[in-house]
């Protein structure tokens, strides 16, 4: 077998196939990019609708403010706050917040706060906790998160704002103290961050 005339064929074939692969992926990505962005936005809007107090009439996504806070991951992580207004008056806000690590990983939560600082509702955006135990924080599995609705920074007082094993007021999910602690502390932090940054979103952007 004469090896010489064949030696360039293999690399050439790989090159052509690579170019083909790249081109196909580029085309698919081009066709879907706009739709994928829309799908992600729809999901965000759905999550916001679930946690914000009802009756707002502003464009929550457009008025979202990104900020950093030294108390939130030492100011290294950005935080998004979504203000909800009715006729220009702030009636609440939502914060997309990352908790301290739970049992497996940090949890991402969407926290809805009423204007005067009461927690309205919470949704779990992303969690990797143990199925059947920690994963039960998700409202799809249990109503554990509902107990925080209506609570605020002063209710319960700060020293009681934790899970029962830490001397706090809130029962932990059975078998999932670590997850419950991470979520409870994140909710308290969310309320504190809202209080600290309320003024920045108090009036509508001009």
């Amino acid at each position: 077998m004469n090896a010489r005339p064949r030696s360039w064929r293999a690399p050439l074939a790989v090159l052509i196939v690579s170019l083909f692969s790249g081109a196909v992926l580029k085309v698919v990505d081009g066709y879907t990019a706009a739709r994928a962005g829309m799908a992600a936005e729809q999901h965000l809007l759905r999550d916001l609708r679930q946690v914000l107090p009802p009756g707002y009439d502003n464009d929550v996504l457009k008025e979202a403010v990104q900020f950093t806070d030294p108390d939130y991951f030492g100011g290294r992580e950005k935080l998004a706050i979504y203000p909800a207004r009715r006729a220009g008056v702030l009636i609440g806000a939502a914060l997309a917040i990352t908790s301290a690590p739970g049992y497996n990983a940090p949890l991402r939560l969407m926290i809805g706060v009423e204007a005067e600082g009461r927690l309205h509702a919470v949704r779990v955006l992303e969690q990797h906790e143990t199925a059947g135990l920690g994963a039960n924080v998700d409202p799809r599995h249990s109503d554990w998160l509902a107990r925080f609705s209506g609570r605020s920074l002063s209710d319960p007082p700060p020293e009681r704002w934790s899970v029962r094993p830490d001397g706090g007021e809130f029962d932990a999910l059975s078998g999932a103290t670590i997850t419950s602690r991470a979520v409870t502390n994140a909710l308290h932090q969310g309320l504190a961050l809202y209080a600290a940054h309320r003024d920045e979103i108090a009036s509508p952007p001009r």
Partner: protein
Amino acid sequence: MSTSVSCLHGCNVLWRHNPLLVRLLGLCPLLAVSTRLIDGIALSILLAAVGLWTAALVSGTRRLIPPEARAICRALFLATGAGIVTVLLKTFRLDLAAQLGIYVPVMAGCCLLVAQSAEFSGRHPPALSLRSGAGVAAAMAAFLIPFSAAREVLAYGTLLRDADQLVPALPPEFALRLWPGDQGLAVAALPPGALLLLGLVLAIHRRLTPAPPADRRV
């Protein structure tokens, strides 16, 4: 091929030579994403799509690509297919994409690449290769779907929970409840439970398949 022979062939691919059962391909995604029936179904569909895409391209280009470049081209075709379904999943079924995450490409890579015999697609015309590709896909589905169904029933007492993630027309609370409440054997949803169940299935498989198959190629 007569009907009985192809039927026997089908049994062999689905049970006796099932790549997931015989060679334990794809253990990691198996443990991670077979907790709900809907995941098993979705993963089966996606892997079938990637498998058929790869088989079609490999056999379609078999005259153009020299033998020494076939393996790498095959991997490239497969990676492209996995990339496409991942992008499409993110676009059209975001919840499911979040659930299955990295496991579609992982499963495609570690399982399809090995299970689908390279020489077969490379030597045979597309129609026959597609049939072999479909066989591998069916074998994976034949394992994944009952396995994830069993885990969901044991863990939650439901079937097809979160089916709205695959079929958005269904209501979000849709699920076939076999007993009231949401409690079951939580361990079934965890990796240890998957291993226990897998061990059980393997034991039955080995028991019913007398001698180890001499020819391990699918």
